[in-house]
């Protein structure tokens, strides 16, 4: 293992290592995990010229403050993030950083990911990747299960974060255009238990707004302000869960299950957020209002394919600074 590392001067909020997540373990109670925003994850690795699935650091609302204690490395921040770079060679004068742009950091330099602006999740990656202990080929931390890198824990203040190689490069990359236009319409498919709900309830589900509650994290987004009641019993025999499922517990406040979703669940599921809209929903902060719109499976699949093409187009826009 390398000795190149950062020191964490402030941990940030729910700062974890993530990649594309786990496979073939859900039948043992281990969820899939992985980055919330797949596009920001892939763009970061593309800019860094890493393998597109290289593990990066994800945070919510506020990222870490990191001091490069040993080594030289290129880094990138993707997302809607306000951050500062302080270089030792410039007497640590703080400079506002630009996202989607590679920075060369040298020993002693500090990068401070102060906050996201109008979104929730941000990403920090390094060229060559972090030096971590993977679990079952994944670099995703499942905090609730204490599984994955960093002993299954969030990144803590005063710990060190190791990276694999020292890198110095002249031709640094930048993505000059990345529009993340957001609205509050979230597209969904009909859920497997939509018939548990009355047509009146289903109508309300699609016609009235929901508010994103404070009680929201990588496991689930809890919604309030539009009570959804099922016809009779509020439970079904537990069954396997996929990301995006909207389950409705007995209190009528739906929960959209996200990357760290439970592996099985016994609440009826009224709808499923389409894969293409999961990160859009995840970036809406607590208090914001959303509305659900029903689409067909064909539309969902088409939008999924279009996003893949969009990502390829974005990759073409990456230029050398």
């Amino acid at each position, binding site marked *: 293992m390398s000795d190149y590392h950062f020191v964490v001067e402030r941990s940030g909020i729910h700062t974890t290592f993530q990649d594309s997540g786990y496979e073939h373990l859900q*039948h043992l109670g281990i969820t899939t995990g992985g980055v919330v925003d797949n596009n920001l994850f892939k763009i970061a690795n593309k800019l860094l010229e890493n393998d597109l699935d290289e593990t990066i650091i994800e945070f919510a609302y506020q990222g870490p403050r990191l001091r490069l204690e040993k080594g030289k490395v290129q880094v990138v921040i993707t997302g809607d993030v306000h951050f500062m770079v302080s270089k030792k060679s410039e007497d640590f004068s703080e400079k506002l950083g630009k996202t989607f742009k590679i920075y060369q950091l040298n020993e002693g330099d500090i990068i401070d990911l102060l906050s996201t602006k109008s979104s929730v999740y941000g990403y920090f990656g390094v060229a060559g990747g972090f030096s971590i202990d993977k679990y079952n080929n994944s670099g995703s931390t499942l905090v609730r299960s204490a599984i994955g890198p960093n002993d299954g824990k969030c990144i803590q203040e005063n710990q060190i974060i190791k990276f694999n190689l020292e890198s110095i490069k002249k031709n640094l990359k930048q993505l000059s255009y990345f529009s993340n236009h957001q609205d509050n319409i979230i597209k969904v498919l009909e859920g497997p238990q939509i018939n548990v709900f009355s047509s009146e309830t289903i109508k309300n589900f699609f016609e009235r707004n929901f508010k994103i509650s404070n009680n929201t994290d990588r496991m689930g987004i809890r919604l309030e302000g539009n009570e959804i009641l099922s016809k009779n019993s509020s439970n079904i025999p537990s069954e396997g869960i996929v990301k995006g499922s909207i389950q409705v517990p007995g209190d009528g406040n739906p929960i959209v299950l996200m990357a760290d979703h439970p592996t099985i669940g016994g609440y009826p599921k009224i709808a499923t957020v389409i894969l293409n809209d999961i990160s859009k929903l995840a970036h809406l902060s607590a208090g914001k209002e959303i509305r659900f719109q029903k689409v067909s499976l064909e539309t969902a*699949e088409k939008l999924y*394919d279009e996003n893949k093409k969009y990502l390829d187009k974005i990759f073409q826009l990456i230029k050398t600074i």
Partner: protein
Amino acid sequence: MIKNINQISEQAFLLDFGDEIAKEINQNVINIFYYIYEQIQKDNFLDLRNCVPSYNKLLIQFNPVKKNKNEVFDFINAIDVATIGSRTSHKEIEIPVCYDEEFALDLHDVSMKTNIDEDMIIKSHLSTNFFVYMIGFMPGLPFMGDLQSNINVSRLITPRVRVPSRSVGVVEKFCVIYPNESPGGWNIIGRTPIRLFFKNKKNPSLFNPGSNVKFRLISKKEFFKLERDI
């Protein structure tokens, strides 16, 4: 057998085996689960990502990038339930359990609610040959059935914020063991000193879907001795 194959998202099929929760139905789910899981281990030619059995459903998650959902569907549809054979394990996993009041946080209440003596509850729990319907909720947590008795209690009205690690709980005809401390609403009737989940083993879970389980009574003294040894 398989009543329905529903595509529930861009990345998953949900196989429906009926509405009932019965061991016979679950055995079919588990047979097909192992058939698919073994195929994945051998050659994951369809690039499947997860296969998750539950009481009467089987969730199959595929990779939407591959655009091969028709092949996945054909593969599932071609499975001949009659010829794949039963994956019943004949090995029985024995779980030592202590019902001392220090551990059996709800045994008294279960007895009051059901009007069955605590001793009788323990006796029937010990005499039941349990079958693991599925694993879930947290890594390595088995959902087992069927309790052979009239013990039929519902979930706690107010779930516990912290159920101690390795607690044994019952609800209706089902029984679980919490591998780690967790919030939970099951009625706790005992605790085992042994570990259920080994993160770094090739198969990290002591229990698998379809495992057979029997409980063995131990004293508090044995509990602490076993706990120390493990």
